[in-house]
């Protein structure tokens, strides 16, 4: 899985490209984990525009990230979910744990 990392208005944006399953989720988990002390104080946005599929392994990474960011008082959101991915979030009740924005500009505006 390729993950594009950019920074915009003080927000680190990670954009995974492809299927987020038990085989690829550890790659995203590692990438999120690597946003360590260097990026302290930054907000984190997961841009899911290129994630066409998510399984429970992907949901686990998102939940873990929500918990870690909350514990460290750092903000976190997910944006640009495709319909099927959004449905999996909703069925799992994860839409009540994680902030979901329809697009990147709205996500960036909400971080301020």
């Amino acid at each position, binding site marked *: 899985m390729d993950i594009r990392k950019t920074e915009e208005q003080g927000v680190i944006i990670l954009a995974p490209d492809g*299927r987020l*399953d*038990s*085989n690829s989720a550890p790659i995203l988990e590692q990438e999120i984990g690597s946003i360590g002390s260097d990026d302290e104080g930054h907000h984190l946005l997961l841009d899911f525009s290129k994630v066409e*599929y998510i*399984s*429970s*392994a992907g*949901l*686990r990474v998102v*939940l*873990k990230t*929500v*918990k870690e960011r*909350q514990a460290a008082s750092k903000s976190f959101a997910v944006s640009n979910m495709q319909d*099927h991915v959004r449905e*999996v979030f909703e*069925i*799992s*009740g994860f839409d009540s*744990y994680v902030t979901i924005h329809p697009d990147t500009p709205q996500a960036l505006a909400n971080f301020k």
Partner: protein
Amino acid sequence: MATQKITFSLSNSLSELERLSELLSLIGEKWSLPGKIILQLNLALDELFTNVVSYGIEREPDQEVHFTIAQREDEIEIVVSDGGQSFDPTQAPDPDLNLSLDDQPVGGLGIFLMRQYTDNIEYRRENGKNIVTLTKKI
């Protein structure tokens, strides 16, 4: 409509999930199934396969997981078998989706999603094999 049937096997590695997805897409095209059905079946089978590989047969590298997918009239029936240790997904408890974030365990969702995206799940242990039968209305 006559029954159509396809069988395939995956080796017990999570990297096989990509092949599972490709095979299901091909079956979907061949049988003219809606994309949404294929996505939902993919998720259900992904979760089952991930469980089998992660907990059932991880110490037995030569084991394969066998799939038989059949379409009859208005439903798809999928039989998944493996020779790993006994694992009955129908007995796994559902996660409590009403828990607060702090109480929500990181995991336990896979079998729940498999249930959500299929209509029936049956399990039997036969000749040292786990045999799970999933059905989904189309």
